[in-house]
């Protein structure tokens, strides 16, 4: 074996140079082939292309800034008005997170009540649906009138919007127990509490996290819509208020900047929920397995 390997070395004097040339593509290719990189790379490429197109169109057709500002102009405003915009973002984010937290807590509590008793579910479920289908813009003025504290009224509105998916998903999850395992628990004379903690709650987690993903976005939408309705009469500092104000003043670049902040916040919230879900379920649930 060593005898045959020995002559091979001197035959290729270019050996040290050879690995360098193929090395570049061989490391670059796997990087792009990685699913994690792909999930960032391709959407980013689309974003760059779209922004480029947008910028190009604005420049070529000489569109006035009060109609469609160019991406660069919006970026400029994002920097010059940073204090104002990010302050507003902080207010909106605070309402969003508070509402999301309340919706999660309340939604889970209601789901547990539903699962404990069919009668409770039958009696109350139509009202949960009623809450869901009533447009928040229609009841927001009432809530804003009834609740003195502006932050509290906005949080209530956003909570109402975000609540339903958590109730529906968690209830479904708590009921979606493998019948075989249910029989096994019954056979071993498990108490109601044991069945809840050891079987129902773990079984419900994938559904619950699905609900969280939807509700995180809805909490943000609820917060923004409530701010819009409250308008100048509300706290007057959130992103929706900035959009309203910018609209009155025809400050379109600032309007776009605020809009982008809202969108980015929504995407980040969704991503955060996805990460949380992956962290909690990644090891065992099918939805978090990434098959190549």
């Amino acid at each position, binding site marked *: 074996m060593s005898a045959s390997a020995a002559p091979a070395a001197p035959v290729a004097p270019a050996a040290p140079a050879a690995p360098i040339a193929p090395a570049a593509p061989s490391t670059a290719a796997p990087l792009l082939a990685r699913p994690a990189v792909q999930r960032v790379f391709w959407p980013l490429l689309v974003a760059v292309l779209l922004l480029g197109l947008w910028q190009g169109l604005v420049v070529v057709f000489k569109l006035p800034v009060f109609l469609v500002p160019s991406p660069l102009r919006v970026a400029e405003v994002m920097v010059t008005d940073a204090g104002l915009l990010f302050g507003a973002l902080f207010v909106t984010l605070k309402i969003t997170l508070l509402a999301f937290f309340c919706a999660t807590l309340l939604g889970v509590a209601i789901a547990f009540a539903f699962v404990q008793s069919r009668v409770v579910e039958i009696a109350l479920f139509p009202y949960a649906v009623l809450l869901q289908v009533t447009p928040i813009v229609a009841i927001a003025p009432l809530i804003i009138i009834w609740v003195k504290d502006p932050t509290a009224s906005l949080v209530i509105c956003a909570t109402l919007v975000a609540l339903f998916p958590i109730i529906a998903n968690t209830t479904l999850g708590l009921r979606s127990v493998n019948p*075989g395992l249910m029989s096994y628990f019954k056979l*071993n004379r498990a108490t109601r509490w044991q069945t809840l903690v050891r079987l129902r709650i773990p079984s419900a*987690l994938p559904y619950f996290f699905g609900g969280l993903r939807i509700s995180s976005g809805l909490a943000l939408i609820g917060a923004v819509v409530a701010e819009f309705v409250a308008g100048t009469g509300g706290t007057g500092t959130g992103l929706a208020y900035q959009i309203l104000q910018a609209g009155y003043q025809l400050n379109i670049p600032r309007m776009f900047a605020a809009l982008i902040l809202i969108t980015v916040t929504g995407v980040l919230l969704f991503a955060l929920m996805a990460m949380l879900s992956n962290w909690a379920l990644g090891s065992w649930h099918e939805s978090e397995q990434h098959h190549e």
Partner: protein
Amino acid sequence: MTGLAGVSGVSAFPEPAAAGSGDVPAVEVLSAEKTYPNGTRALLPVDLTVRQGEFVTLLGPSGCGKSTLLKMVAGLLAPSDGRILLWRKPVAQAEASGHRLSFVFQEATLMPWARVAANVRLPLDLAGVPRAEADERVHEALQMVGLDKFAGNLPRELSGGMQMRVSIARGLVTHPTLLLMDEPFGALDEITRYRLDSDLLELWQRKKLTVIFVTHSIFEAVYLSTRVVVMAARPGRMVDELRIDEPFPRGAAFRVSTVFSGYARQLQDSLQRASGSPADEALA
């Protein structure tokens, strides 16, 4: 092994009280039948006595009520008429006799979020067995099925056969005297099934278990059982019984012996007679 049921108050799961109560039948099915409220007759009245230490197989095509009968013995279903006694006591009070039954389902029915050790520990956790004792039992049970190296794995990381072994370990961890198995190896490939069959027989002998095993495979029934109960469908009923008087341990050679095919032939004929159709259907 002389310990009797009298001391059962000490531990949640005492060692099986074996020798002393040898003549008490483990299972008595007394004209038990099952008719569903919609009128479907799942099982006509059945009489069956299973003595301790027997390995009884319920053999029959789909819809013959074999699973129904097994679930009634386990107390998962109530007979619509007739009675079922375990160690001379009604099913619900059977554990007062110091005995315990375990049920192994057709699927492994493991908790996908829990590691193998936690899955096997489940019945002990539900019964409130102290953690240290439970862990020791889990280790012992996993050793019995040859999976002690996989205690820290999640179910999905194991093959189907290994998951079934975990399920059996979970069945054994409570030190049962009666093991009820509902087509436990039905979803496995034939080679894995053969291995698990012989492993099961070894456990049955070593632990002096009483087993009621449900299957639709004639060959599995002959290989495993001391007695085969033949059942037929539409309506589900018991039609025949066959004693397999062959010594244990039964090696691989038994599977291809003429004696083996003789028994298989008899069961096939019996199934054919009961269904009035080619026996190949029952084999499928």
